């Protein structure tokens, strides 16, 4: 494919969609559906300001902290539970139940226990992200290849080496799947944790705009959230390509045969 064609397939549809929105909404008099031009103007005024530091960065920082904690807890517990048959049997129904609780309904409970500070918001994010990571890790650890496990035993690869080189790596495709699901849950909870009794943050700001009927500003906030989601998904994909290079390599080499 030539470069020009590649650019057209990559950007063609997005450009058409944005242009359509721009022209259809131009001169809109509907109070709730302002023109794209006004939204873009509001976007610049609203977000290229100290708001970026005061509202956006703290939100993203809380997400990062909560997400990382969830990864560590989820992978550590998941490896323990997955490697131990009776522990797995013991925990499975409880985990299934806990996972099935929609994370946002835990927000009122966590607020009750931990107040309304940063801690609560981070705990909310952890409480939602941890389940997909944990359960996928358990599945991944369960699927360790027997021959590979035998190889480790016969070559005396034990203890920490075994966890690092056999269990963690075997489970990594599934862990990555869980981590990806966890990330999208995390973004959702980042916003939701700021909708309850907060005084700053991205979610809080957007709801303030909504309540104050600052409609173009609110729309621009929705765009910011969308952009954060897209950027984080891209970062995740880059990380995944590095971590799972071997896995994608196997899959594509199998396809060739």
């Amino acid at each position, binding site marked *: 494919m030539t470069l020009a064609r590649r650019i057209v*397939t*990559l*950007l*063609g*549809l*997005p450009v058409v*969609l944005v242009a359509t929105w721009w022209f259809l909404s131009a001169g809109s008099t509907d109070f*709730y559906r302002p023109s794209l031009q006004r939204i873009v103007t509001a976007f610049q005024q609203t977000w290229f300001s100290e708001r970026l530091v005061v509202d956006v960065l703290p939100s993203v920082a809380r997400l990062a902290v909560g997400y990382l904690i969830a990864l560590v807890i989820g992978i550590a517990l998941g490896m323990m539970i997955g490697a131990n048959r*009776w522990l797995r*049997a*013991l*925990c*499975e*129904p*409880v985990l*299934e*139940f*806990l*996972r*099935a*609780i*929609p*994370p*946002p*309904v*835990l*927000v*009122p*409970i966590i607020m*009750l*226990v931990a107040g309304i500070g940063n801690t609560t918001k981070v705990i909310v994010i952890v409480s939602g992200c941890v389940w997909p990571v944990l359960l996928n890790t358990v599945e991944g650890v369960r699927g360790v290849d027997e021959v590979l496990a035998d190889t480790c035993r016969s070559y005396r690869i034990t203890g920490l080496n075994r966890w690092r080189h056999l269990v963690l790596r075997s489970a990594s*495709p*599934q862990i*990555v*799947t869980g981590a*990806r699901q966890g990330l*999208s849950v995390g*973004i*959702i909870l980042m*916003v*939701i944790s700021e*909708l309850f009794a907060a005084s700053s943050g991205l*979610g809080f700001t*957007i*709801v303030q*705009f*909504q309540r104050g009927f600052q*409609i173009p500003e*609110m*729309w621009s*906030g*929705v765009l910011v*959230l*969308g952009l954060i*989601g*897209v950027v*984080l*998904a891209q970062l995740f994909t880059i990380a995944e390509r590095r971590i799972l290079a071997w896995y994608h390599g196997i899959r594509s080499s199998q396809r060739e045969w």
Partner: protein
Amino acid sequence: MSRALWGLAGLAIFAALGEALPRLGLISPLYAPPLSRILSLLGDQVQQPRFWTATVDTLKTWALGLLIAVVAGVVLGVAIGAVPVLRAATASTIEFLRPIPSVALIPLVSLLYGATITSTLVLVVYASFWQVLVQVLHGVADVDPVAHDTARAYRLGRWARVRYLFWPTALPYAVTGVRLAASVALILAITGELLIGSPGLGREIGNAQDSGAVPQMYALVIVTGLIGLAANLFARMAERRVLAWHPAIRGEVPV
């Protein structure tokens, strides 16, 4: 058998902790009432019509949203996936729209539609639609190139190709997509009710929180967990039933 016993033991330990920790004062009973109190309150709840109205509202929103998302996801997925040009042209747009968190729409829909079921429905459809679409697209892409060449060599028309080539290959993926969508849809239904205030269990939890009725809040949270659990089990059973004939029950695509 022993596996099930272990599982029951696990649940028993979990329940015992839920009872003992508040009673022993390790967790303040103000924050976490003992399980027996929560359960007895739950017993009262289920005798009230209000509880059942809320449950039915939640289930309705969930089922309707899921249905719309599945139909749209499957139809668009097969249509886009079967036409290479469409597929290439939409790839970047899908990659861009998919990660947009559904809650970003909450302020928008509550402005546009107020505290109604429609608001929540938009969230539910938006969030679960992508799950189905992406799995179906992966499924269609998984069509065996040899089978594809065979179909072309025998000059199967576009419809016949969709019917006999794309659809059977994509079905296992689609079913997986539906299973994932089912749990996402339930989460979004209850979240929408909690945050937007449309009728359902989520709103009841919000009300319980506002009036400081802690045990009731816990009781409702447990109910949402049980519904989620039932939905997961049902979806997995259905998945196994639908795919029982399939030569290789495929795993989830790590997307």
